């Protein structure tokens, strides 16, 4: 291992860093009458890879631009490393940013792009050359310094943009969907490269994406956003296992839904009526609302928690069985996806190992089995909008 590598590791050796914290408190932003952020609060511990995840127009990029200081919040405060940055111009904030279109300077060479920020800081030329070389090495572009930007491939441009920001050793690096323009394979490669670099340097990364798979793969913490509000904050695993509302369960991973009506809610149990009959669930299944008798809800369950049997009367201990008819079976490499029509709802099940015997042809009777404690009950989206 070269001397340079050890230097970089030394920087990240202490897992606890004193800078790189972002604290966002009660931030709202509106343009005229349009509110793009509603009372957003999130705190980013130093050294975290945090992802803002949401569909386009959810306010994630606006939040990033607020941290960068391109715009100021309408209300609320943003603190970086414990210091309120209201009114601090972008160039004085300890941040770096990688843009969606990368925004490389076309009239500079690769090395000149990377050196730009160092030159502005009036660092001696020898020192600049040393640091530029070190960071070009880090992003895997050693020897590319003299190239023109137009001579680089998409992935190489990404790496230049990254090096240009990281060479200034910012406390926080903001990344605005930097991988969205790349093809699938290159994207995968760079996802791992980014995560690796983040781990080596220990810099706080705030990453924006609309791709839940990308978010799951890279992040320590995911902030799911929709319609200008934070929907849920947590580790990728926690968000997948325990989505707080219908939006999150739909947006992160695949989900089966079945409409239902609450019949009785008392003590530790909920009785709901579904098109496939009555079900009893633990009271803890209800998320984000207090179910009352007569309330409309949506029952959700992950595909891997459903089991399909060819026998319509099949039953397993501790499981509820619902009869249905087979719609299709698809082999997707390592997994098989089986779709079953249960009382008009198409439920999908995922099972590992596509070599198992097939269920039969479409329309064949079968049964869907599930554990009641795997079910989640959410307030139906229509009810939420009306309320």
């Amino acid at each position, binding site marked *: 291992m070269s001397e340079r590598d050890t230097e970089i590791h030394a920087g990240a050796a202490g897992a606890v860093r004193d800078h790189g914290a972002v604290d966002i408190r009660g931030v709202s932003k509106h343009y005229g009458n349009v509110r793009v952020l509603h009372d957003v609060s999130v705190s980013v511990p130093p050294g975290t890879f945090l992802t803002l995840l949401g569909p386009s127009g959810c306010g994630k990029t606006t939040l990033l631009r607020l941290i*960068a200081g391109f715009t100021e919040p309408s209300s609320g405060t943003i603190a970086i490393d414990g210091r309120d940055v209201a009114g601090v111009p972008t160039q004085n904030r300890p941040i770096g940013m990688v843009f969606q279109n990368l925004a490389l300077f*076309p009239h500079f060479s690769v090395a000149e792009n990377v050196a730009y920020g160092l030159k502005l800081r009036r660092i001696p030329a020898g020192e600049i050359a040393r640091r530029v070389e070190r960071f070009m090495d880090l992003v895997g572009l050693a020897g590319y310094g003299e190239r023109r930007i137009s001579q680089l491939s998409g992935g190489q441009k990404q790496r230049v943009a990254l090096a240009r920001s990281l060479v200034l050793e910012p406390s926080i690096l903001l990344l605005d969907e930097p991988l969205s323009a790349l093809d699938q394979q290159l994207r995968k490669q760079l996802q791992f490269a980014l995560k690796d670099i983040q781990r080596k340097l220990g810099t706080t990364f705030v990453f924006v994406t609309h791709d839940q798979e990308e978010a799951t793969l890279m992040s320590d913490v995911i902030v799911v956003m929709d319609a200008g509000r934070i929907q849920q904050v947590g580790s990728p695993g926690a968000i997948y296992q325990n989505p707080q509302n219908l939006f999150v369960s739909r947006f992160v991973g695949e989900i089966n839904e079945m409409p239902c009506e609450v019949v009785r809610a008392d003590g530790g149990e909920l009785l709901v009526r579904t098109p496939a009959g009555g079900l009893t669930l633990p009271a803890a299944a209800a998320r984000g609302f207090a179910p009352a008798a007569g309330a409309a809800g949506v029952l959700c369950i992950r595909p891997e928690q459903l089991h399909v049997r060819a026998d319509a009367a099949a039953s397993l201990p501790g499981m509820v069985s619902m009869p249905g008819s087979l719609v299709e079976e698809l082999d997707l490499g390592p997994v098989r996806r089986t779709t079953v029509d249960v009382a008009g709802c198409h439920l999908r099940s995922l099972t590992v190992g596509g070599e198992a015997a097939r269920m039969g042809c479409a329309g064949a009777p079968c049964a869907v089995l599930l554990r009641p404690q795997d079910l989640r009950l959410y307030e139906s989206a229509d009810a939420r909008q009306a309320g």
Partner: protein
Amino acid sequence: MYSGERPRPVHYLLLVPVLALLGLFLASVALLFSNAFSGGGGFSLQYFQQILDRTDYQIVFLRTFVASVAIAVIATVLSYPVAMLLWRADRWRNLLLIVVLIPWLVSLVIRTYGWIVLLGPKGVINGMLQWLGLLDQPVKLMFNDTGLVIGLVHVLMPFAVISILSSLLTIEDNLEEASRVLGARPWQTLTRIVLPLSLPGAFTALIVIFLASMGAIVTPILLGGVSQKFVGTQIYQEVMYAFNMNKAAAWALCLLIVSLLGLLALKAIERRVLRNHE
């Protein structure tokens, strides 16, 4: 013609208007050459000799050249702030562009008379300065090089504004923001990113305006006066008053050569300055 379709013979008829124009152009250039190099019944350089031997004519070429360079530089520099304003004015850009182009909607002669009203000895500017007590005698702003430069800069500035603006508009979104995040103050972003990237437009402006003022006629006549000769006005006089077509043709070819030399010089400078651009 639709893409992928091979042109059929009948399609070549569409070239007729272009070929007609091209033919007329080539014929007149041929006529120009034969006029310039004729004399004494055969090939001769006598008309060139008549022009090049006279010191006052050499001075006319020098004046035209220096004035054209000055006009190109002044117009380009003055156009920068205007182009930047238009670049920034997202919503008002088209409206402001019309304002910039209004001079072109007015006939050249009327526009130049407007300048006479402003610049003349009894014009608005002299009147103002005298009324303010800053001047006792009117300053001469017309029928000299000052008037000529002012007039041509005004006429040609819209070229520069448009060409600089088009260069500015090709600057990718976010480059300024990227520069700011990397620690640049606004003026550093301006001098290191925006100005260098708009230079191709500035060079186009310089070249177009230089060539246009080298061949200018109306403005030099009306604002420059009779005594302050320009190459264009010389040719005009040879054609309209002396009826010496041969000498006029020789003048025109000399003008072409001087313009070409200027153009090559500007191109060489452009290549040096823009060697880093794609």
